[in-house]
């Protein structure tokens, strides 16, 4: 099948245009970020020192320094930002898993006629604006927002609870925004699961809980891993959620990068943070793609 003669001319065009685009708009920008992370900040336009200068002679003089990286590894602020990004992403993925698993399970066991609308309802929020869905929570969590109003009206609390601008709200926002990413892969695995295994386990005398823990759960692990990574990876670099729902002390790398870039105009330091974030995201991403490839092969 692959022995068809290559239509070389159109083939070059078909592969060439996207390739050039990717090299120009994906690879080159990342290289520039790395290069600028080695520069020094200065006032002016652009606000960083040039990496090369041409002086008398043939060779350019190279000005690079790793001071920004040294700062990232020594300053408490940046270390904390990386650590709390990891922590918030991990706990949010775990909470999302606890909510999504029973949902995916129920959808997979539902009658086929209800399954599609139920799935549709999980996917639908993904198509509506992320920004608006996060914003919706500000009106709910506010000190004079929906939850506090209801609790005050019923006399359950005396003073409004501080819900908005907390780390709790950030977790809530991330779980809410990325829940569909957790439900879908778990559902995909459970849907294909051979339920006769469960019947066999029951016939052999296993109680439902034991059968679930020993049969269903292990068989759905690939879906769980995929879902956790699909929540964990975007959560690591999240900016909108901590910005709108987090407090001033909620540090996440995405937000610190934003501040360094827009408020402090320190482009080299923002670039170094970006490279750090890239390294942080690359590890789970590679795990994810390995997992997918293994699934495909199986």
């Amino acid at each position: 099948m692959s022995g068809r003669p290559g239509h070389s001319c159109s083939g070059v065009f078909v592969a060439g245009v996207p390739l050039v685009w990717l090299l120009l708009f994906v690879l080159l920008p990342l290289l520039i970020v790395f290069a600028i992370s080695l520069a020094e900040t200065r006032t002016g336009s652009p606000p960083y020192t040039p990496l090369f200068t041409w002086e008398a002679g043939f060779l350019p003089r190279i000005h690079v320094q790793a001071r920004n990286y040294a700062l990232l590894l020594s300053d408490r602020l940046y270390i904390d930002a990386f650590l709390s990004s990891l922590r918030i992403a991990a706990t949010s993925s775990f909470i999302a898993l606890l909510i999504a698993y029973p949902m995916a399970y129920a959808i997979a066991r539902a009658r086929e006629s209800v399954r599609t609308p139920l799935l549709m309802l999980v996917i639908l929020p993904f198509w509506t604006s992320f920004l608006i869905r996060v914003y919706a929570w500000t009106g709910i969590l506010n000190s004079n927002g929906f939850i506090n109003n209801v609790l005050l009206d019923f006399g359950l609390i005396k003073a409004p609870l501080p819900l908005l601008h907390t780390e709790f709200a950030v977790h809530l926002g991330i779980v809410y925004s990325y829940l569909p990413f957790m439900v879908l892969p778990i559902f995909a695995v459970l849907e294909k699961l051979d339920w006769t295994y469960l019947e066999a386990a029951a016939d052999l005398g296993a109680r439902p809980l034991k059968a679930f823990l020993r049969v269903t759960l292990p068989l759905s692990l690939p879906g769980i891993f995929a879902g956790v990574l699909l929540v964990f990876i975007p959560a690591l670099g999240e900016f909108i959620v901590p910005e709108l729902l987090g407090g001033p002390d909620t540090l996440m790398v995405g937000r610190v990068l934003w501040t360094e870039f827009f408020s402090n105009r320190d482009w080299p330091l923002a670039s170094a943070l970006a490279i750090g974030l890239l390294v942080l995201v690359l590890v789970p991403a590679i795990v994810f793609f390995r997992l997918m490839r293994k699934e495909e092969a199986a």
Partner: protein
Amino acid sequence: MKNRSTFVLSMLVFGYAFLYVPIVILIIYSFNDSRLVTVWSHFSARWYGELFKNAQIGEALWLSLRVAAASATVSVILGTSAAFAMRRMRTLFSRGAFEAMVTTPLILPEVLTGLSLLLLFVFLGETLGWPGQRGALTITLAHITFGMAYATVVIRARLSQLDPALEEAAADLGATPWRTFRRVTLPLLLPAIFAAWLLAFTLSLDDVVIASFVTGPGATTLPLVIFSSVRLGVSPQINALATLLVLFAACTILTATLILRREEMQAKNMK
């Protein structure tokens, strides 16, 4: 046994309530007359009226729609050719390298994509003098880059399901590669291309982080307007706008799904 299914069912109800209650509350409060967004006074469509009079939002919406339509269109063209290119690549290395580059925008955090593209535009502006000024064009270029990545994934999935015998039959009957593509492959791919376009369009219409980095003076897209207003707190006009956007998105997706489903049914019946 009974207990377990009650547990699963109540978790299902909880899950859907969690997904939808915030949006429903937002919609209800958009019809609240009071300026104090969270204190209910009485039903009114007052904020919708003010929204339609808001020229800034109207302009931003128009810009966003143009950027989204242009970037989604280029995205599916590039995505389709990337999907074809990947099918044709024979060596594991070239396919692996290409695949890695296509999927990179999918996993890059938005702040990183935004920063890297801005630095690229600054660099190009200084060395080539282009783009002279950042604005709608640079936002479109940035949106094409991630839209293309999503489009490639969607179209490639469909392409790998196609029966190669159909294309071979066309070739055997003497159709040129271009004719085979236009008359056989493209029609079969259309549902996926349509879905990819819609996805790229939606993502572009929703993007605030990347646009914040690569925009320039005068180019304010709708998400940028919403974001700058929302950062200051809850606003009744934004509630009304959000309601319209959410309802519009829901209607579009439901219609699109129904159309695609009907197409699929027809295709099955034809077989």
